[in-house]
């Protein structure tokens, strides 16, 4: 498998976006991010959502056969974007180092183990807007920091 050649480098998680089906950014957090997009955060969320929306439609047209999961990930020379979408349209997007392999289970856990448990099932958390829950934030942060490919690289 290809992913092992790169794993000698320090692997890391750059940032994480959580969108609902209408494109509202429910949550954003970053760990080792060296470069900002140079636009206000709200604009960045819109750009990210717009890009994912277009990639989804692009990929469904390009595919030679019928798709099941659809778009999974893309990588550039410096980072890899992992994408996971639930049937209800919640999208989990994580940017990591190139050395990280498929992490569908991790993204799925962020949705089912954290978002559903701590936000959807919490009557004090209104849906369809930015998550205010401090519990969700801290649990998510702790989960990401516990991942095997999260390195405590200073940044």
């Amino acid at each position, binding site marked *: *498998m*290809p992913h092992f050649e790169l794993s000698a480098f320090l692997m890391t998680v*750059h*940032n994480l976006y959580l969108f609902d089906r209408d494109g509202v950014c429910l949550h954003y957090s*970053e760990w*080792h*991010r*060296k*470069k900002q*997009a140079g636009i206000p955060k709200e604009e*960045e969320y819109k*750009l*990210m959502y*717009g*890009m994912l929306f*277009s*990639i989804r439609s*692009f*990929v469904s*047209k*390009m*595919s*030679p*056969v*019928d*798709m*099941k*999961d*659809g*778009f*999974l*990930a*893309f*990588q*550039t*020379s*410096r*980072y890899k*974007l992992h994408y996971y979408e639930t049937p209800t349209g919640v999208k989990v997007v994580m*940017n990591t180092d190139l050395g990280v392999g498929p992490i569908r289970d991790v993204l799925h856990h962020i949705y089912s183990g954290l978002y559903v448990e701590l936000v959807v099932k919490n009557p004090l958390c209104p849906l369809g807007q930015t998550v205010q829950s401090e519990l969700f934030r801290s649990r998510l942060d702790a989960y990401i920091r516990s991942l095997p490919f999260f390195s405590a690289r200073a940044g």
Partner: protein
Amino acid sequence: MAIFSVYVVNKAGGLIYQLDNYAPRAEAEKTFSYPLDLLLKLHDERVLVAFGQRDGIRVGHAVLSINGVDVNGKYTAEGKEVLEYLGNPANYPVSIRFGRPRLTSNEKLMLASMFHSLFAIGSQLSPELGSSGIEMLETDTFKLHCFQTLTGIKFVVLADPRQGGIDSLLRKIYEIYSDFALKNPFYSLEMPIRCELFDQNLKLALEVAEKAGTFGPGS
């Protein structure tokens, strides 16, 4: 293992070359009696299945042929509208072939320029400094590999997710482009590539890559 198709996009996002190398056929033919138990809908000048997934016929599939005669978009070979023809009880029983709609050349142009923009946004949203655009895009049915040259031309290859050796194939295609398009005195820069030698050598390179990539390392 297969390489599905190749796209060459110029620095302005225009498609200057496209080749469909291998298209897996996912088609289903079935004979129907009136009334049709599928809901068909007109979308983008094509008749698509909107509801009633069954027997290999999936939502989103297009009507490809009726009674063995190919359908052009929303018209039958005789020039009648497909929906009108299928709405008439006198035409039944009728045998319809369904399958994934094939891309028209217009759609390919559109998709190529769409990828050009996605490539640029991919580098703008990078959390790391000095990132390129999208080099590899992964889905469950195919992988898209892209190589951008220093002069801004993008070579895009769509291949099976397990196909290896695509990186060297992309460099090889660049070489073929330099040798047989750029060195052709009748080829004008940034314009569609219509060179026989380019075609021949590209097809050869794809064949070699398909054979070699089966055993090669993943890319």
